[in-house]
């Protein structure tokens, strides 16, 4: 039996390394194995090197490096099946959650946001990355790997953008714009160029390219579906007009009050004070709504123009505050104060018929939310812009009704 010397061991080890085996454990396994073969199977009278050269091909088909590659593959993709399973589950879960979330959102049911966010997250950060990983394993060509990698990264960007858009989070547009621009002008041409010249892929490539361009184009056309600036601009103009009318009516009321003779002045004093108190309460709600949603202080909020407000920001917080009876400034309290104001007018000598249509506190029935009370209709689904607009409208009506009241009182004399 030939005993392998240390020098020979070193020679074998160096040769194993030279042939491309880099994992130390594997090197030592192979060294021991080769030594065992030499010690157990080498016939007498054969040279060590000659025998070594003759047995080493037993370890591979073409080259020894295969062992390293095979080991790496087995270790790297030991989770291959687990990954595939996770992929299926993530796919099903994210589609179900997104569809359910969309249905919930349409019907204004609770939990819509949670479902959409969870669905979007599992789609963007579990499903798509797993597809990239598996595609990298399955695809042979490096170009294809690269092209698919880019495609799926852009898909992640777009799907996160869509999720942000649905949730009204900031940066949604920029995410979608970058994602879709990259997709339409980067990925699709790349996909087409790298595949169309391969005869077996030509037809599929052309069909897929057209489909992807169509989808990308539609998304491109859709991602800025916000308020049309015409609608926005006309709304601003209408609101400016109303503010103007509020100012005019304030002035008119002041002038009208100044014109009153002394005895009538005493008679209407209570109502004038009630109107002033109510208007001040309305102004406080107005300022508070702006402070709550626009990240500004009370001084700026009082003079803030509707054109410089962000629509829909913190709308849910505002709605919660305005519908909370515990808060100092809320819709129910406002309703009560309006009722008290009306009572003061009746006590001052007007009949209930006179006041029939004054500051309508009836509920409303809308297609979207069904039957609602007055406070729900105006504050329960409000945005800062709708609240401010309604409160301005209310101030205007209070002024006009008070002037009307003064006229009636004068006629009664």
């Amino acid at each position, binding site marked *: 039996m030939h005993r*392998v010397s*240390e020098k020979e*061991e070193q020679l074998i080890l160096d040769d194993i390394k030279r042939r491309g085996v880099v*994992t130390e*454990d*594997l090197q*030592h*396994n*192979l*060294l*021991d*194995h080769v*030594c*065992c*073969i030499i010690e*157990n199977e080498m016939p007498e009278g054969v040279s060590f090197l000659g025998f070594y050269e003759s047995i080493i091909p*037993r*370890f*591979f*088909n073409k080259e020894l490096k*295969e*062992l390293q590659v*095979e*080991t790496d*593959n*087995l*270790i790297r993709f*030991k989770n291959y099946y687990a990954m595939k399973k996770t992929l299926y589950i993530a796919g099903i879960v994210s589609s179900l959650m997104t569809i359910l979330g969309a249905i919930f959102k349409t019907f204004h049911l609770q939990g819509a946001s949670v479902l959409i966010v969870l669905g979007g997250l599992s789609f963007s950060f579990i499903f798509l990355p797993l597809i990239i990983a598996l595609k990298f394993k399955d695809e042979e060509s490096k170009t294809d790997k690269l092209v698919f990698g880019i495609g799926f990264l852009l898909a992640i960007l777009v799907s996160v953008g869509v999720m942000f858009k649905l949730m009204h989070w900031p940066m949604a547009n920029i995410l979608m714009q970058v994602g879709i621009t990259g997709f339409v002008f980067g990925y699709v041409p790349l996909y087409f160029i790298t595949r169309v010249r391969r005869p077996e892929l030509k037809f599929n490539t052309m069909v897929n390219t057209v489909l992807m361009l169509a989808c990308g184009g539609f998304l491109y056309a859709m991602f800025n579906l916000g308020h049309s600036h015409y609608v926005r601009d006309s709304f601003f103009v209408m609101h400016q007009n109303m503010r103007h009318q509020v100012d005019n009516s304030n002035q008119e009321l002041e002038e009208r009050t100044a014109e009153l003779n002394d005895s009538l002045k005493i008679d209407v004093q209570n109502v004038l004070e009630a109107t002033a108190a109510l208007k001040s309460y309305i102004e406080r709600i107005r300022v508070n709504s702006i402070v709550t949603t626009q990240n500004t202080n009370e001084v700026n909020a009082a003079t803030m123009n509707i054109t410089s407000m962000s629509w829909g920001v913190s709308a849910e917080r505002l709605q919660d505050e305005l519908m909370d009876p515990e808060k100092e400034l809320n819709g129910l309290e406002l309703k009560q104060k309006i009722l008290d104001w009306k009572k003061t007018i009746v006590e001052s000598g007007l009949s209930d018929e006179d006041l029939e249509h004054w500051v309508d506190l009836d509920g409303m029935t809308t297609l979207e939310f069904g039957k609602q009370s007055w406070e729900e209709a105006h504050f329960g689904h409000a945005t800062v812009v709708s609240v401010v607009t309604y409160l301005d409208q209310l101030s205007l009506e209070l002024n006009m009704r008070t002037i009307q009241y003064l006229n009636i009182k004068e006629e009664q004399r």
Partner: protein
Amino acid sequence: MYICLMYSSELIKGTLKTIVLNLLKEEGRMYGYEITQRVKVLTEDKIQITEGALYPTLHALEKNGELETEKEYIGKRVRKYYRLTDQGLETANDRVSEFSDFVNTMKFLLDLEPRLGNA
């Protein structure tokens, strides 16, 4: 990657893990060369495991937690002994029963066991 003196490689593909796991279950601890030799002896040279297939499989099983290793020094050379972990034992049992079930199914499917009335 097998050298199979009697069987086509398609026939035995996928059984290497089962063979290695079951052998370690029977023998306790073994090193690479020993495994190849043991298989050779047990199957009377009908199946020979090549080194090219054995080591990647051993490394993958170890990484998976099915095997644990201990090192022994033979002079300056390191010999790595493999042994089943608890998880490996469970896998070995599962694999063997799955394979035996498969063999029975194949026997039935290929009509290898003469049944009454078939003669």
